[in-house]
């Protein structure tokens, strides 16, 4: 205790910048992976409810799903909990066999009963991601008849239509289809909630890691699951919530974290020069786009929609503001999806845009607003677009707002132009086609509100085509249908897709084996080693 006064003295001296106080230096332990990440979006740890980026990644590392795909080649689908599956001749029933000898972290054996329970539970709880399963005609009322256990390690899933098997299987790779430990969950059930209130903050899975602790806005601690067949090299993965990206950078360069997840383009460029750090990047299933509200009479003109597509400097945005964060992409399906188009027919062409505007009777341009989330990234892109729009006389007024605020306005279709990011909900092309190219009811009272609805766009025959594509059982033909849908939206739709999102992970060189998958729940630390 003799040190106490000295400490206070030091405190003051630090403030006046003239001291020598040596801190206890702690590098990260060799069997622990520590990452700095903005994790304030986590609101639940129940896989039937998780729909947030960070929580999805945690679910992917702690739960197993019935089906999964190779993160390097999405077309390779394999059984994770499922040993095999078959489709009935009429295409409406899938029969799954569950792998034998699997165990949950709790020690309970994993059987078909758990899988059936997990899928039924997700449908019955009906949280945000439940629609991914609901698309196959599963509802609270019928799910117990549609998903049936037929043996200790076997069950069937009955669909309302003969959907493309790829569509069903891809949907089953999503977080909502994670397998939970029925016995453990039901031990914690209260008032028939299927363990929902408990699982929100607890864990009942069979994945490589278990969730030991979650302190909101502070930390998530994962620990090796001793019952997982392939022992993880890391005993622990600690994710610290570090909101400020500059702080993440300092921690990484200092070696107090192994991985920084949210560095901005300048910070990435700076750490890339550090010999102890490397940056890995991978394309993600998100696209950046402008939504042009068709309630605005100017934006409703086809020539104007086309002109605006010629008024974005795609390459400049990808090379500067979004360097390392995005690559030029113009179709609504991101690369990596079945049928995704990689052609980029549009580039900045002011003369052509002017010509199109003149055809629309807007020779002198017009004034239009854009609701813009006030983050550095989005504002930067908005300003770049404002500049190029201006070259053809389109005066763009940027309306800054908080993310939730601009989104609220967008969902009520009260915007002119909205700049935003759209992430795929599951790995099947229908996820984006359903929102960009289909709109059943364009009235203000519509029940379903896809992006096409939000921009008050009636895609006409594209809606029927989108519906037909999920029933096409020949993968090649199916891919072709999505190509055509993308081409139509690219030609005439009210969306100016300009970038595909790229995720970056800056890590210490000694970290090896971090897998960046195409979706957030396929980012994996299961085989991470520290050399």
């Amino acid at each position: 205790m003799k040190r106490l006064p000295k400490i206070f003295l030091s405190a003051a001296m630090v403030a006046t910048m003239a001291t020598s106080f040596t801190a206890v230096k702690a590098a990260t332990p060799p069997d622990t992976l520590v990452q700095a990440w903005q994790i304030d979006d986590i609101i639940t740890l129940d896989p039937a409810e998780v729909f947030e980026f960070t929580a999805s990644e945690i679910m992917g590392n702690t739960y197993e799903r019935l089906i999964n795909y190779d993160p390097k080649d999405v077309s390779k689908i394999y059984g994770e909990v499922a040993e095999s599956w078959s489709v009935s001749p009429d295409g409406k029933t899938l029969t799954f066999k569950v792998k034998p000898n699997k165990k949950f972290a709790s020690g309970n054996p994993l059987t078909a009963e758990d899988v059936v329970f997990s899928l039924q539970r997700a449908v019955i709880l009906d949280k945000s991601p439940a629609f991914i399963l609901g698309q196959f005609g599963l509802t609270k009322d019928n799910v117990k008849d549609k998903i049936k256990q037929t043996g200790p390690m076997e069950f069937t899933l009955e669909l309302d239509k003969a959907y493309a098997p790829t569509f069903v299987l891809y949907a089953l790779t999503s977080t909502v289809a994670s397998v939970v430990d029925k016995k453990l969950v039901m031990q914690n059930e209260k008032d028939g909630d299927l363990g929902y209130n408990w699982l929100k903050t607890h864990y009942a899975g069979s994945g490589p890691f278990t969730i030991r602790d979650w302190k909101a806005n502070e930390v998530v601690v994962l620990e090796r699951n001793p019952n997982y067949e392939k022992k993880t090299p890391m005993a622990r993965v600690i994710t610290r919530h570090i909101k400020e990206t500059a702080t993440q950078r300092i921690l990484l360069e200092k070696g107090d974290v192994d991985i920084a997840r949210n560095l901005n383009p300048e910070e990435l460029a700076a750490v890339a020069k550090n010999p102890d750090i490397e940056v890995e990047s991978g394309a993600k299933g998100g696209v950046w786009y402008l939504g042009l509200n068709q309630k605005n009479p100017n934006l409703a003109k086809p020539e104007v929609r086309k002109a605006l597509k010629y008024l974005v400097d795609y390459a400049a945005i990808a090379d500067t503001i979004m360097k390392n964060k995005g690559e030029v992409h113009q179709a609504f399906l991101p690369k990596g999806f079945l049928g995704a188009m990689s052609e980029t027919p549009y580039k900045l062409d002011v003369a052509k845009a002017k010509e199109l505007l003149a055809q629309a009777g807007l020779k002198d341009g017009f004034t239009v607003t854009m609701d813009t989330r006030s983050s550095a990234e989005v504002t930067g892109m908005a300003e770049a677009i404002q500049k190029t729009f201006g070259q053809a006389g389109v005066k763009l007024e940027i309306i800054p707002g908080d993310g939730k605020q601009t989104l609220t306005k967008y969902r009520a279709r009260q915007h002119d132009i909205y700049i935003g990011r759209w992430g795929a909900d599951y790995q099947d092309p229908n996820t984006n086609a359903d929102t960009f190219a289909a709109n059943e009811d364009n009235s203000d009272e519509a029940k379903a509100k896809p992006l096409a609805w939000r921009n008050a766009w009636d895609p006409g025959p594209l809606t029927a085509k989108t519906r037909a594509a999920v029933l096409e059982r020949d993968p090649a033909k199916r891919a072709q249908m999505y190509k055509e849908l993308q081409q139509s939206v690219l030609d005439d739709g009210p969306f100016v897709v300009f970038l595909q999102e790229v995720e970056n992970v800056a890590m210490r060189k000694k970290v090896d084996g971090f897998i960046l998958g195409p979706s957030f729940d396929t980012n994996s630390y299961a085989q991470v080693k520290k050399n």
Partner: protein
Amino acid sequence: MTSSIAIGSGGHDVLRFYLTKTVQFIAVLATTLFGLVAVTFFIGRIVPIDPVLAIVGDRASPQVYERVREELGLDLPLIQQFWIYLKKAVTGDFGNSVLTTNPVMTDIANVFPATLELATLGTLIGVLFGIPLGILAAVKRGTLIDQIVRLLGLVGYSVPIFWLGLMGLLLFYAKLDWVAGPGRLDVTYSYLYEPVTNVVLIDTAMQGQWDAFWDAVSHIILPASLLGYFSLAYISRMTRSFMLNELAQEYVIAARVKGLSELRVIWRHALRNAAVPLVTVIALSYANLLEGSVLTETVFAWPGLGQYITNSLQNADMNAVLGGTLVIGATFVVLNLVSDLLYRLLDPRTR
């Protein structure tokens, strides 16, 4: 507190005084808190953010959206929503935070101690150094020392804390390695102690986890010094001007004429009088820090009240915002009361 300042006058009077004071205090507290709840509640309902979105996200089906809206009671008339909230709040139920899923008061019991720890240490540093510096500047008015102190104050007042924080981290943590980095504790120590008060310094010390304690000290020093510097800038400036004011008074001249030593004139006479308004200044500056310095907390990854409220606000998590606002309101009222009581102690005329 009562016994220490029950000086002089008849016991009866004192009793009556404290009784009225207590009743007054409760009345002030209740009105302030009610006003705060009402204003925050209604502002929260008119902000153009859809609170349902914070829960269900952008992708939920219309049915899920409607169900949650009803669960939140957002389909009821505003007044009825307010009434339901008030009824629950009176029984101590402030609802659950959407973002953390915890009851709001549990969250606050977690984040407020983090802020309390930082703010208290910051204010301590500010007072310990700010007052002597302010006095020095006043006494040596116009000299180089005065200029330096004033410059120090000016810098503290005008440089963004955000920038200074990052520079501090870069220098003292990244380059010189004198202090530990952002956060309250290294991960190695995080699970070594049982959180009781949630003030890491107290918890670790009480449980004899000295390694963890020193690690916590080394984490808190930089952000606390930074806040301390800002409060020092304010306190020294105010001390200087209060002291200048006092030093120009006739009683000071009289004291000097009487032949009292300069030290005695300054510390016993002038400072004693300057101390009265200074108490308010310190209380205010403390209250300011207790609100949680969002920027400092962000830079230093300090899970405090400021970050909590800001994050909740941005996500329209109104239960959390209301709870946080109430805590801040109560803090202000209590600090006001304390400075009132100190006034009585320091200024005989108010007795």
